[in-house]
């Protein structure tokens, strides 16, 4: 059944700071970067910061991994007169795309008119994602995983990738193609951290960090902030920018996936997957779209292997066929059936917990992307395969 709120809200502003290599945003503060992104998004939308009256966060309102956004502090800092909505999806970056649905809930419930979603990330040495879990004392739950030395997300992801390779014959060449194709997309982008061309031999020479995943399979560690503003379709039509309508948005997921790689209890086929299938199935059902309708896919790429598994879970290819699918060139910007991560993604451009994907989707649908997909009308954006909830979003112009 079609979603009751289909195309009733739209993204009307997007704002961002520069992207920095890990730690290089210092001495800026997290709230400063968030504020800069929010003010830039307001300027882009052609509205005053005083018109912002709602906050819809992802990741438990996390600001990076060790800090939290506090709406009261942002209201005080930015001079926002009054708010009617302040909420977050739970979980982590899995809910990134779903924050647009949360903003829609705020607007359709008449709680707010202009809702901002923001993420800022600053990985100072003590707050570096890959090292956080090794420092945390193991909880009773985590005492069943952490002693294995799987301290970082890459360690845990590699176990899922291995299962996929075992079941379906997926080759490292497929992961390499994802990394290389996204690098190609990053080359013309001045915002991208990594812009040098990459060959398959260079990919294979990258040191193994958690076999079968090498360093180039891991996303970048970067700093920066991105914000977007959602409002009603009626207001959007009178706005400064071409509206980017929220056509469908789902979050959630199934028990079989659950805590995912924090748990490792997933049965087949969920173990060697992105966990997105229930979210994807609902997204297609509520939007009335099918994979072949999508013009550009911005798939959360914290690790290359998860791009492949999302392509399967969203039905761009069959389950287990992700390897041959990407190796055929299907995800290339130039000539691919479904261009993926046309901005270079988190593997080559920058990693702001998925929010760079929102920026790219908006730019594609406004027709102003650096690697513009000609005539793009529908974009898919996903949250990160991780503990529930995970999320998917279809935007249209």
């Amino acid at each position, binding site marked *: 059944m079609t979603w009751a709120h289909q195309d009733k809200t739209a993204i009307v502003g997007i704002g961002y700071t520069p992207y920095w290599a890990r730690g290089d945003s210092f001495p800026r503060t997290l709230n400063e970067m968030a504020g800069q992104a929010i003010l830039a998004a307001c300027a882009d939308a052609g509205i005053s910061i005083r018109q912002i009256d709602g906050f819809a966060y992802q990741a438990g309102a996390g600001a990076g991994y060790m800090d939290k956004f506090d709406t009261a502090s942002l209201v005080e800092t930015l001079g926002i007169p009054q708010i009617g909505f302040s909420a977050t999806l739970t979980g982590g970056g899995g809910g990134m795309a779903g924050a647009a649905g949360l903003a829609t809930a705020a607007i359709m419930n008449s709680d707010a008119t202009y809702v901002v979603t923001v993420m800022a990330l600053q990985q100072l040495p003590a707050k570096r994602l890959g090292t956080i879990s090794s420092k945390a004392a193991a909880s009773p739950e985590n*005492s069943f995983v952490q002693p294995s030395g799987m*301290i970082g997300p890459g360690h845990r992801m590699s176990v899922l990738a291995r299962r996929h390779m075992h079941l379906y014959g997926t080759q490292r060449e497929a992961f390499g193609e994802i990394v290389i194709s996204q690098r190609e997309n990053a080359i013309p982008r001045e915002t991208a951290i990594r812009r040098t061309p990459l060959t398959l031999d260079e990919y294979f020479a990258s040191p193994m960090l958690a076999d079968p995943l090498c360093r180039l399979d891991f996303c970048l560690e970067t700093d920066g902030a991105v914000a977007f503003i959602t409002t009603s379709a009626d207001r959007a039509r009178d706005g400064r920018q071409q509206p980017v309508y929220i056509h469908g948005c789902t979050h959630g997921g199934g028990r079989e996936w659950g805590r995912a790689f924090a748990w490792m209890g997933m049965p087949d086929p969920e173990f060697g997957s992105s966990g997105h299938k229930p979210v994807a199935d609902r997204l297609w059902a509520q939007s009335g779209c099918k994979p072949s309708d999508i013009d550009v896919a911005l798939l959360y790429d914290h690790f290359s292997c998860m791009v492949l598994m999302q392509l399967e879970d969203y039905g761009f290819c069959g389950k287990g066929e992700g390897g041959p699918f990407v190796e055929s060139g299907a995800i290339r910007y130039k000539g691919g059936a479904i261009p993926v991560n046309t901005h270079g993604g988190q593997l080559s451009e920058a990693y702001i917990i998925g929010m760079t994907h929102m920026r790219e989707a908006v730019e594609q649908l406004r027709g102003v992307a650096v690697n513009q997909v000609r005539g793009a009308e529908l974009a898919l954006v996903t949250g990160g395969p991780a503990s529930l909830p995970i999320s998917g979003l279809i935007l249209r112009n």
Partner: protein
Amino acid sequence: MYVPNRYGPAVVVPGDYISITTDVWTEPFWQAAKERRLTACKCANCGFFRMPPSPFCPECQSQEVQWPTLAGTGTVFSFAICTRSPFPNVSDFVYVPVVVDLDGAPAARLVANLSGVNAEDVRIGMRVGVDWTPIQEGWLLPNFRPI
């Protein structure tokens, strides 16, 4: 061209650096481990196994549990090969985190280390048996070796 790495012998993460915590639901697992007895949390009502141990059976919501003694054997479901030390003051070593399907406890898995084998020779489907590693505060951690 991709040439698989030769890693050499896999060792376990040094127990001196490993600490665990328990709660009322996980404590029986670790107390059994202290006696070198591998168990898993089994619902006393419907027989469903769950790991880690938790307050409710996800199948029937019962809170009654049993702790059957398992054979201590299992099958490698998946694994990674890691080459960097997880600890800043310990030099690098090769270790293989494994996800193990436990014999006699369907759907229950343990995440552990596999040693006694060259890392490049580990395979999904490999048969393994429990091998206890002393860790901090007198606890024993179930790791595995090929059998």
